[in-house]
C-alpha cells in the first residue's frame, strides 16, 4: 500500500506527522516534505487514520 500526497493541497496542519511521525516527514515550516510514502503492513491501520485526519484531504490511499 502507498499514500500519495496531492500536490499543492498541504496547508501545514501537521496532523499526519503528529499521528505517524515515522511515515510523514515535514519541512522546516511544517509542510509535508514527501510526495508519497510506502506503507508497511503493520502501518496500515494508522495510515488509514492519517488519511481521514487530514483536514485538506491532501492524502490519497493507493491500495494497488
Amino acid at each position, binding site marked *: 500500500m502507498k499514500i500519495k500526497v496531492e500536490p499543492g493541497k498541504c*496547508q501545514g*496542519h501537521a496532523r499526519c506527522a503528529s499521528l505517524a511521525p515515522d511515515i510523514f516527514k515535514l519541512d*522546516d*515550516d*511544517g509542510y509535508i516534505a514527501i510526495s508519497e510514502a510506502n506503507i508497511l503492513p503493520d502501518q496500515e491501520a494508522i495510515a488509514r487514520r492519517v488519511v481521514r*485526519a487530514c*483536514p485538506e484531504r491532501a492524502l490519497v490511499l493507493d491500495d494497488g
Partner: protein
Amino acid sequence: MSLELTDIPSHVPESLVQVWDPNAASGADYDPHAANLFLLDGPDIFYSPAPRQQGETGSWVVTRFEMIREIFQNPEVFSSKHISGFSKLLGEEWDLIPLEKDPPEHAQYRIIVNPLFSPKRINELSDAIRENAVTLIEGLKKEDSFDFVPRFAQQFPISVVMSVIGLDLKDLPTWVEWGQGLLHGKTLEARIHAATEIKAFLLKEIANRRDTPRDDVMSKVVNAEIKGERLQEIEALGMMYLIFVGGLDTVASTLGFMFRHLSTHPELQERLRNEPEKISDALEEIMRAHGIVNSPRYLTQDTEFHGVSFKTGDKVVLAQSVACRDPKVYDHPNEIDIDRTDINHMIFATGPHRCMGSHLARREMLIALEEWMSRAPKFLPDPNQKAIAQTGGVWGMYSLPLVWDR
C-alpha cells in the same frame, strides 16, 4: 442584548431568511454549542439579517461541514479581505496580515510567519510552556475554589504568547481587558476604544524594535523583508495585530470549554489520568465539538453555490462551531468520544488561511491537559457559583468556577 437587524439585500429569497443570533438561543449563556445545534436541522445555507456584533452587517450563514471546507479551500471566490473589521472600527483601511490578504499576495507574508510558529519551533518552546503551566496549577492547588477562566485559561496562553512575542508580562491584565473589549465589547464605543488602544500600544512597540531589534518574534516580524524591502509600518502593524488577537482569546476560550466538559465528566478525567496516551485524542475531540470561531468570507464574484445565488460583495459566515458536529460527517456527533478514529475538524480552518498559530495552540493545550491530569486532583463545577459562556467574535467561557474534589 439583542442587535438591530440590518437590511436584507434584494437578491436574497424570502424563503432563505432566518434570524440567527447565537446568543439568543436558550441555554447559550452556558453551552452555546448545544444551544445553536438547531442550525443543523435547518437549511444548509440561509441569510441572517442579524449582525454578529454591533457595527457589522447581516450575512449568509453556511452550516454544513463539507460546504465550509469547500469555501475555505477556494479563496479566489471567497475572499478574507476585510473580514475582521478591526481597522474599519477606527475608520481606517489596513489589513490583518496574512489573514486579510488573498493569494497570491498572501504567500509572501505567510513565509515570514510560518517559521516563527512551525512545529519545529514549538518543540523548542515546550519546556518553557510546561514550566508556566506547572507554576499556575501548583498555585491553584493551594486554594479551595477558583475561577478557571482568569486564573488559568487566560493567564496561561496569554503569558506564553506575550513571552514569545517579546512583551512585558506586567501588561497582561491590560491585554486581557483590551481583548475582551475588542472581541466581546457590549457597545460599539467599547470595541472602538479597545481597537484604538491596541493599535497605539503596538505601534510604540513596533517602532522600538525597528530602531533596535531584539531576540523576539516581534522584532523578526517587523523587520522582515519582502523582495529586499523592509515591511512598511502599516504591514508590520497588521501582522502584529493578528498575532495579538490570535493569541489572546482563542486558546483561552477553548480551554474554558474543555475544562467545563472535564469538570462535568470526572470519569473522563479519571481515564486520562490512567491513560495519558489518550490525551492527544481527547484534545482533538473536545476541540472538534467546541469551535470558537465562525469565520466570515466575502464574495469576489457572483457565484451559484449548492443552489444558492451569492452576489459579489455578499458576506458569508461559516458556522464552524456547529458544523464540526454535522451528523453527515460524524456518528453520534454531540458526544465527546475520545475513541473516534475519524477525527477531522476545521477548528483551525482549512485552505491557505489555516490558523498560523495552530501548532502553538495545540501544544499549549496538550501541555495544559497533561499537567492537569498528572499533578492536579479531580476538579468539579463549583456548586455555589454559575459558569457563564459568551458568544460574539469568539465563543468562549467568561467564567468557570471550579472546586477540588479531595
